[in-house]
């Protein structure tokens, strides 16, 4: 037997089609076609329904009226001011939830007795309808942004906390052995092992948390506010401007999309090593 039979000749090249980037595969391209199409169908149905039935624009305005109203909103500095207020409340609430949720989550994930001690209270904060606490926060902190920041934080806090606890508990025992055999300090174990290992879980908590923070901010604003998209929604309702109501909802939805995808991008950026960001 000669060596040549064992290995392909060194000059061999893969077939021409191998590894060529085809841009997008059929599957990933699908939503780029179906999403606009479905939206178009929806808008057309809406348009012809309004035209055909002659329904009052107070009950259901035509899509074109909603569009005009939204365009007005985009050119109004007052509406942008309200949008920024909501962005600010959402981000502040989310930031507090993140700091406290991750901090407490790491502590509870590490310390069994602390978790057992605090668990009933944490479950209690979860089952209380938190929106019902808003009047209390208004009494304590006034009608300014603080009370809404707290509502947003309280809503976003729980999923971040539980996911962090799960993440810290899921740290691989073999990885812990490595750190122990290297005589790592408690801080080093946290910084070099527990935190990076929990990051995929924390990011999952953040993805859920950011959406809840927006809900908290908006509900807070329309129950006890004088600024923000939630407040705007209530004033449109009081002014019987149904098309404006729709415009505010569009604005809120886009805000939600933005925050959600921003956290998703954070995942690709912070944990490129994790299987959850592998290209499908």
């Amino acid at each position: 037997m000669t060596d040549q039979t064992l290995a392909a000749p060194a000059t061999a090249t893969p077939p021409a089609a191998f590894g060529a980037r085809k841009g997008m595969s059929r599957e990933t391209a699908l939503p780029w076609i179906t999403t606009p199409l479905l939206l178009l169908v929806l808008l057309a149905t809406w348009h012809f329904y309004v035209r055909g039935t002659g329904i009052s624009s107070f009950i259901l305005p035509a899509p074109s009226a909603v569009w005009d109203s939204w365009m007005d909103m985009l050119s109004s500095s007052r509406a942008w001011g309200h949008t920024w207020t909501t962005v600010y409340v959402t981000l502040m609430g989310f930031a507090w939830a993140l700091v406290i949720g991750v901090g407490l989550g790491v502590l509870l994930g590490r310390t069994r007795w602390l978790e057992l001690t605090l668990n009933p209270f944490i479950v209690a904060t979860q089952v209380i309808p938190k929106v019902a606490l808003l009047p209390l926060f208004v009494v304590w902190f006034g009608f300014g942004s603080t009370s809404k920041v707290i509502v947003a934080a309280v809503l976003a806090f729980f999923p971040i906390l539980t996911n962090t606890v799960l993440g810290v508990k899921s740290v691989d025992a073999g990885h812990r052995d490595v750190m122990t055999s290297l005589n790592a300090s408690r801080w080093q174990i946290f910084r070099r092992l527990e935190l990076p290992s929990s990051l995929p879980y924390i990011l999952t908590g953040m993805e859920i948390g950011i959406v809840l923070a927006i809900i908290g901010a908006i509900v807070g604003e329309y129950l006890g506010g004088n600024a923000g998209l939630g407040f705007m929604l209530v004033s449109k309702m009081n002014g019987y401007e149904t098309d404006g109501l729709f415009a505010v909802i569009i604005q809120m939805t886009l805000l939600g999309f933005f925050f959600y995808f921003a956290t998703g991008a954070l995942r690709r950026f912070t944990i490129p090593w994790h299987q959850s960001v592998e290209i499908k």
Partner: protein
Amino acid sequence: MQTEHVSAPAIGLSKIEKWFGTRAQPVHALAPTDLDVPAGELLVLLGPSGCGKTTMLRMMGGLLEPTGGDLTIENRPLWKDGARQGETLSELGMVFQDANLFPWLTIEDNIALPLELKGVGKAERMARAHELTRLVGISGFEKRWPKELSGGMRQRAAIARALSYDPKILLMDEPFGALDAMTRDQMNLELQRIWMETRKTIVLVTHSISEATFLADRIVLLSPRPGRIDTIVNVPMARPRSLDVQTTPEFQDIARTLRHRLNEIS
């Protein structure tokens, strides 16, 4: 010049024992055991499952505290009043059955992790990591993620990580147990080469008779319930050993002896 019998052993076990479980249901994992591992030796702990070989190795590595007895590394106690002695621990490098590389670190950062924990600067760390990738035969893969490497290559990286801070002793817990037979043979050859180049003291746990016979200077055969040393077998075959050594009568005699004894005790 010092002769071997007066120099202190790299690892000294004196009446070391280990109990697990509760007072109501105690499990005697390792009966009081004496064992000296001279510096530079490649010692293999061999035995059926439940014989306490991994327990013994984890005690040597400071991952488990002995229930009784004295354990010294380079003549210094590893435990003092229930606390691991950090300085003694830095004479030891551990390799596990799973490579246990951190998936969020590249190969070079994984290898340099122990140095980072010890506060060594980045440039020096990276230089050392690159030197080690050459030693273990994975140069060119420094910037890759662990998931991009094969099982054998990951285990090579794990060995490099254990060698990064130049410990005198390498403790290996079934390091090639999860690899396929061909890769395993290759890794045994590589380990022999690395050992001959670095002159470390190595204690390796395995349940493979051929791996034990191929690698060892001395094989400690352990028997179960409770774990204790059954026999110690010298393997006087010349080095470097090639894989062909497995077909020699000498090798087969030792392997046969071990197999018969293992069948009797398990």
